[in-house]
């Protein structure tokens, strides 16, 4: 009885790379940098807010209002997304977030997150910043900003 494994102790129910349908690398040649920042391309939540919904009701018919779950499902189907894709979109709308942080927040290996991000880049739902190598920083003002920011901690 007590020997049985429960919850976390039993390990993940879904093997991480199942989410990527077995792919270990995405479409892009270069793996995304760990500190590349991921920005959601659209400001709107995947499900239109209630206010917007009533405004746009004319297009879809009033009675046939899709529920939140239905809209999400349709969005997911249209873009061939898995739930983790939606989690990523939600997280990068909440705050400025990097590839490494997404992996930490979703408790997924970085490799899995990279593949999922490649998918989202492919359908243009996210945009990724290319980290600037220190040698290519336009001027020292950024570094001074870092020092000032640290001093204020």
């Amino acid at each position: 009885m007590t020997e049985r494994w429960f919850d976390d102790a039993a390990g993940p129910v879904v093997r991480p790379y199942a989410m990527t349908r077995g792919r270990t690398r995405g479409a892009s040649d270069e793996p995304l940098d760990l500190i590349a920042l991921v920005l959601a391309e659209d400001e709107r939540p995947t499900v239109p807010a209630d206010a917007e919904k009533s405004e746009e009701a004319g297009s879809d018919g009033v009675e046939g209002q899709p529920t939140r779950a239905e809209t999400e499902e349709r969005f997911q189907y249209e873009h061939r997304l898995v739930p983790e894709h939606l989690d990523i979109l939600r997280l990068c709308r909440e705050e400025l977030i990097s590839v490494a942080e997404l992996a930490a927040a979703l408790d997924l290996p970085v490799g899995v997150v990279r593949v999922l991000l490649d998918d989202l880049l492919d359908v243009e739902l996210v945009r990724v910043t290319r980290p600037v190598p220190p040698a290519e920083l336009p001027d020292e003002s950024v570094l001074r900003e870092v020092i000032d920011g640290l001093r204020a901690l």
Partner: protein
Amino acid sequence: MVFGRARRARQNAPDPVALKVLVAGGFGVGKTTFVGAVSEIKPLRTEETLTEASVPHDSTAGVERKTTTTVAMDFGRITLSDSLVLYLFGTPGQDRFWFLWDELAQGALGAVVLADTRRLEDCFAAIDYFERRAIPFAVAVNCFDGAQSYPEETVRAALDLDAGVPLLLCDARRRESARDVLIAAVRMACSTTAISTSRADSRRRASQRSSGTPASRSRAARTVSSG
């Protein structure tokens, strides 16, 4: 697409900037404590391709098709402004994860090498690594309770540090202390980017030294531990 309008609006603002500083040092020197003291720490695991270096340690007997290994790293974030974020990466302490360093080091602004005077030799590898790649760094001696303290010159000599490399005493548990060490590392980065020629110089020096230095460093370390 439906979201076109939002996308155009976003393009007017300059992209936010992310920078990273590495926190290196031997196993158990206080890297996790340091990162946790000064930043919001996040658990990060990364699945890495097994290399020849790690194969002898991660036995793949019975799972010969296993080609990756999961590595946990210390990882922290300091939000400096709406558009500027500093990330800290604790480099894996075990020698077998050295292959991970190259990815982490790429594009790093600078580094902090944590040292423990009771086991000074543990940080030689990190110092050599950053010197060879001309990554600006500061050395911080983590002052453990009960560890004998040495004068700065003694530690500096034992580590064979260049005159320009900052050497600080710190308490990795204290936020202000860890912060000051980070500032020293970023200052170092400032002066290095300002005079890019000195980078080439230090790289040349590092490569000259790579043949003879390890011996002299370990000799010096023995002097410290016996004195």
